[in-house]
């Protein structure tokens, strides 16, 4: 336990720039006010209340209505939102000074009590909040005075600031929640630059500019989020002008859209890594030579070029580069695509080619069982099949079983996993390495507790991730996570395949939009239309 550090970090707020400076129009262009932005995306929200919805379809919408204490800009730096400054009082307590004069859309003033109300409701309410699971050790908030609030954690918790900058920790109006009850989730009330107008199930959600916003008012009059499930129909809507912005566009059309001056393709490397996982507790994958042989057998470049068609980038480790604590694992240098090397490693481990081309050891074929779903992550089925074929080239047989996601998910969450391999994607929700390295690689985090589906166990890694979790010194944490990733890179239990790109296509008349590495943070407060 390190002694508590106290740091007062005052944050400058310039009169002309709001802290939420996400995307800005180039100064040459005069920003125009007004107009309606129409966005098409595949699914309707589950709810517009983070209490019931932490996935993208709802988050894209409520991120523009509900504001957290802190936020993360597109460079992944923590910036003030409803809190102006913070002070770390102890390893389990952070004090926030709130922005004065802020009002919710219903006129309720934003104060410490509203922050406490929001956290109490999420952590102790019924039904329990969906986002409580994402909030790590967050345990609640206490009112100090009208504009000062203390946020507490159960134990020293390094990622606390990133947790409070998560898209789903927006502060809600206590008055509105008490008045509306469960209906709040259909018409939430926050402090953001847009306020709620209407939600027609499976049709659209409409927001309008909040004229009393504390920061720069949104240029747009209205935003309409339309549901268009069919990818082809979404792209046609963009072409006919029925839509100004498409979320989850068709990857196959991106190349031609980039060449067309009528459209702008916004892209940035996102936070999700999709990988083929290996069960390290299951022979023969308990042998690191076999695991690394499999890494050498996979031609990731071919997968990315031929299957993902430019909609993703090669994974550079088990974390995405936008995550705090990320260290490049140099996979292409450590494990280049090299079939001869793969065969040599297998031979070292005692696996020699058998009569049917499959390697064997004392009469047993090297045959791996593999569980995967289709359509849960972009091209997950196709990459699984491609890797299966690549394994075959080095004499390893893989028997893939494709099942519907809900079924696969249940098996992954079970205490025992009778599969050698599995295809999964993982997004670091709070953009802090703890969230992934702890849940995925700590030996005590085997399902159903956590997500260590690989059954990876290394006491050194356990100690490092625990230490990093309990430290509030971010420089030290970064160093510890670097060491963890160095160890993991030597003992690989994953074949990291790709890192998703966040891609949004707009018509050229849409200005002031910047795509964010966190897929949920679709910020429309600066967007304007040049029509």
């Amino acid at each position, binding site marked *: 336990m390190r002694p508590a550090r106290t740091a007062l970090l005052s944050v400058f707020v310039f009169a002309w720039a709001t802290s939420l400076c996400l995307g800005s129009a180039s100064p040459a262009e005069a920003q125009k006010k007004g107009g309606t932005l129409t966005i098409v995306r595949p699914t309707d929200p589950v709810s517009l209340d983070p209490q019931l919805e932490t996935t993208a379809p709802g988050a894209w919408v409520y991120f523009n209505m509900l504001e957290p204490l802190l936020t993360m800009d597109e460079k992944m730096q923590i910036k003030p939102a409803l809190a102006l400054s913070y002070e770390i009082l102890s390893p389990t307590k952070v004090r926030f000074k709130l922005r004065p004069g802020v009002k919710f859309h219903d006129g309720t003033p934003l104060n410490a009590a509203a922050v406490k109300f929001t956290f109490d409701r999420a952590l102790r309410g019924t039904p329990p909040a969906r986002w409580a699971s994402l909030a790590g050790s967050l345990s609640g908030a206490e009112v100090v005075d009208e504009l000062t609030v203390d946020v507490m954690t159960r134990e020293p918790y390094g990622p606390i600031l990133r947790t409070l900058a998560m898209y789903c920790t927006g502060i809600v109006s206590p008055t509105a929640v008490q008045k509306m009850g469960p209906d709040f989730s259909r018409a939430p009330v926050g402090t953001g630059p847009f306020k709620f107008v209407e939600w027609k199930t499976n049709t*659209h959600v409409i927001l309008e500019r909040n004229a009393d916003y504390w920061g720069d008012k949104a240029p747009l009059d209205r935003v309409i989020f339309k549901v*268009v*499930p069919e990818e082809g129909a979404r792209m046609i809507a963009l072409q006919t002008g029925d839509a100004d912005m498409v979320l989850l566009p068709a990857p196959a059309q991106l190349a031609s859209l980039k060449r067309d001056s009528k459209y702008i393709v916004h892209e940035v490397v996102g936070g999700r890594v999709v990988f083929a996982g290996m069960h390290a507790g299951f022979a023969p994958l308990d042998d690191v030579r076999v695991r690394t042989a499999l890494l050498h057998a996979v031609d990731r470049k071919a997968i990315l070029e031929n299957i993902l068609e430019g909609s993703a980038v090669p994974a550079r480790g088990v974390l995405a580069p936008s995550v705090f604590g990320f260290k490049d694992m140099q996979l292409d240098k450590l494990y280049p695509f090299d079939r001869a090397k793969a065969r040599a490693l297998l031979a070292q481990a005692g696996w020699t080619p058998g009569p049917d081309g499959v390697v064997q050891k004392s009469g047993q074929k090297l045959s791996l069982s593999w569980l995967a779903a289709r359509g849960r992550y972009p091209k997950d089925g196709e990459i699984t099949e491609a890797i299966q074929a690549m394994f075959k080239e080095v004499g390893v047989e893989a028997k893939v079983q494709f099942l519907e996601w809900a079924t696969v998910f249940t098996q992954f969450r079970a205490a025992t996993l009778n599969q050698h391999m599995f295809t999964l994607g993982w997004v670091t929700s709070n953009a802090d390495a703890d969230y992934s390295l702890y849940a995925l690689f700590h030996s005590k985090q085997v399902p159903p507790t956590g997500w260590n589906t690989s059954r990876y166990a290394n006491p050194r890694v356990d100690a490092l991730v625990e230490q990093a979790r309990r430290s509030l010194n971010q420089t030290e944490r970064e160093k510890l996570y670097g060491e963890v990733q160095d160890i993991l890179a030597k003992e690989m239990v994953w074949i990291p395949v790709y890192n998703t790109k966040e891609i949004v296509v707009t018509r050229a008349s849409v200005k002031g939009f910047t795509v964010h590495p966190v897929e949920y943070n679709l910020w429309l407060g600066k967007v304007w239309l040049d029509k």
Partner: protein
Amino acid sequence: MLTFVARRLLLAIPVLLGVVFVVMLTIELIPGDAVALMLGEHATPAAVAKLRDYLGLDKPLLIRYVGYVGRVARGDLGRSIQQNRPVIDELGDAWPATLELTAAALVIAAAAGIAAGVVSAVWPNSAFDALARLGSLFGLSMPVFWTGLVLIVVFALWLPWLPVGGTGSPSHLVLPAVTLALPSLAMVARMTRSSVLDVLREDYVRTARAKGVAERLVVTKHALRNAAIPILTLLGLQAGQLMGGAVLTETVFAWPGLGRLMVKAIFARDYVLLQGAVLIFALAFVVVNLAVDLAYGALDPRIARQG
């Protein structure tokens, strides 16, 4: 007549009870847990347990079944597991859209299908007949998501006459209704053609013609009324099919109907919402079947006397 209707409606109750039980059992038997899915990859076991307890999902199947049936009997369809919203509201949002789409598609299928079928039967092996038969083969074989997208490209992109999708005006209804109607239209046309052809060979048609009845009247009054029974049966079956089978059309045209709601409920293992939707379907089937039976009686007095 009234007792007949009342008896038929009472008979529907055990059917509905059975349907509810089968749906519940199915959701229970397929792997996948609503709460674990809802809370996603990142949920703690404690959170999952807490929510299961809150939703009463930890109780045995039979207890939940009895509880559910008791609540439905009192007119309470419960709250959807995923959205925590009254199921009646969810259904209220989707039901009108489905009804509108199904009714429009059924009208198109019946009107165009019967007209094409009658013309084909009156002039069999003519150029029109060949075309109609080819067209109906096409309508039956082409998948909805393909015809739907082609119609969008032609009528929304190339000739910007109609909207790409969504709802809001009568013009929004045209493409999805036509797309949904095509396979049924083809079936009705083929059924009408064969049915009318059979009747036109009957003795009483020859008698009518011999009496000098105008050909138009022979076809409409004598032939079509007798050929109508199998056509009506087919339309009744199609009505149920169209309601439940509109998922793909609803998806392509972003139509906010029951089909998509059900698929969503199945993938989320949201049995409460699914039950509500299935109950509506089951009821609709019962009502349509009843309406078809009553229509038989109106068309053929011999059937009415037996009923």
